[in-house]
């Protein structure tokens, strides 16, 4: 699955990927000649997910939840409209649920069956999220998966795994780092990492 999984890396050698590249180009030409696709629309789609929709969207949501208790309450109660307040909505985020991390419970999101991920707030998923190692182990041995990310949680923290098997998309609300009292939303957003909103990471510390 993963291009970066060393065990599998040699399975797809350059010629195979080169062949895929040629086939993709050929198919795009055929589909364009037939009038099924407009290449300019493809450019807009790519630009949208490369430049506009990504984890900085989610970071804004989390920072607002940290700074504004009323917003946090709305987000945890019904995340889809709360996120739409900031302007993020749509494909692969039609039904979003926000998961609150606490000292007692740490949430981690996975899609064991494919790659379900809340696009409007996090963008497209990274390769590791779609890879066999993550999808297989997150539900069975999550502490070892967290260790792969350099994250170690207290032994008595409950780890709650959310396998995204339907069209509900999950966004983790990490705990606000200590030492950030009085910070603006903009400054707080800089501490929110993509992985902290999946549950495989923690927010940056203000000392970092």
């Amino acid at each position, binding site marked *: 699955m993963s291009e970066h*999984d060393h065990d599998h890396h040699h399975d797809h050698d350059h010629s195979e990927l080169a062949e895929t590249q040629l086939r993709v180009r*050929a198919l*795009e030409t055929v589909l364009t000649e037939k009038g099924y696709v407009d290449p300019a*629309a493809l450019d807009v789609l790519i630009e949208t997910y490369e430049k506009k929709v990504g984890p900085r969207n989610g970071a804004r949501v989390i920072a607002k939840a940290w700074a504004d208790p009323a917003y946090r309450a709305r987000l945890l109660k019904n995340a889809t409209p709360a996120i739409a307040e900031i302007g993020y909505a749509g494909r692969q985020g039609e039904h979003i649920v926000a998961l609150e991390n606490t000292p007692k419970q740490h949430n981690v999101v996975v899609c064991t*069956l494919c790659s379900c991920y809340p696009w409007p707030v996090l963008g497209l998923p990274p390769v590791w999220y779609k890879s066999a190692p993550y999808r297989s182990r997150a539900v069975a041995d999550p502490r070892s998966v967290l260790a*792969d990310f350099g994250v170690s949680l207290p*032994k008595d923290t409950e*780890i709650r795994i959310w396998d995204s098997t*339907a069209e509900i998309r999950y966004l983790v609300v990490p705990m606000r780092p200590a030492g950030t009292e009085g910070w603006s939303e903009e400054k707080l957003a800089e501490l929110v990492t993509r992985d902290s909103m999946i549950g495989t990471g923690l927010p940056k510390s203000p000392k970092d």
Partner: protein
Amino acid sequence: MNGAQDMGGKPGFGPVNPEPNEPVFHAEWEKRAFALTLAMGMPGGWNIDMSRFARENRPPGEYLSMTYYQIWFAALEHMIKARGLVSDDEIAAGHSLRPPKPVKRVLSPADVAKTLHRGGPTERETNTKAEFKSGDRVRARNINARTHTRLPAYVRGHVGTIERVIGCHVFPDSNATGAGENPQWLYNVRFDGRELWGADGDPTVKVSVDAWEPYLEPA
């Protein structure tokens, strides 16, 4: 289906390797394969469950040795060929050799933003009552469908608790086969780690899946 896509709990895949500062795409063809897949949904007329089935329905050895966007692209090729929109000789030639089939709509650049913003909500109104309520104990049925299903193997036969009644949603098992949306009640079901993985399971772990009513029976 019990394909290679159903990975939960399968051993031996090694460590997770996060890539620092990972780009959104790793090659130009990945961008085009991604965008073609999204754009072809409109003229192709398939739904997301049909797409997922097209991706997972391949020999496990193939599935596991392909990269993510190779799987997407193979599924796209399969779906457009199955609908007679393009044929093999045209892909080989790299050019259209026949007139196009009439299609309902083509995605224009101006429509991209609003199409993405609209998305594809799956919640539906219903007159039926949910059979289960929050706190109920349920067993995941032992389903081994050859067609598309979203009940992962690792929970089948196991007992969990209804965490939340989510709502009535399009049922992928029907939608993927073209049998219609057939909306069903959807639940978040929570399982203890030890229930799923036995004595080797981490007692501090709980795992939930989102499961439609036909996947569940009272326990």
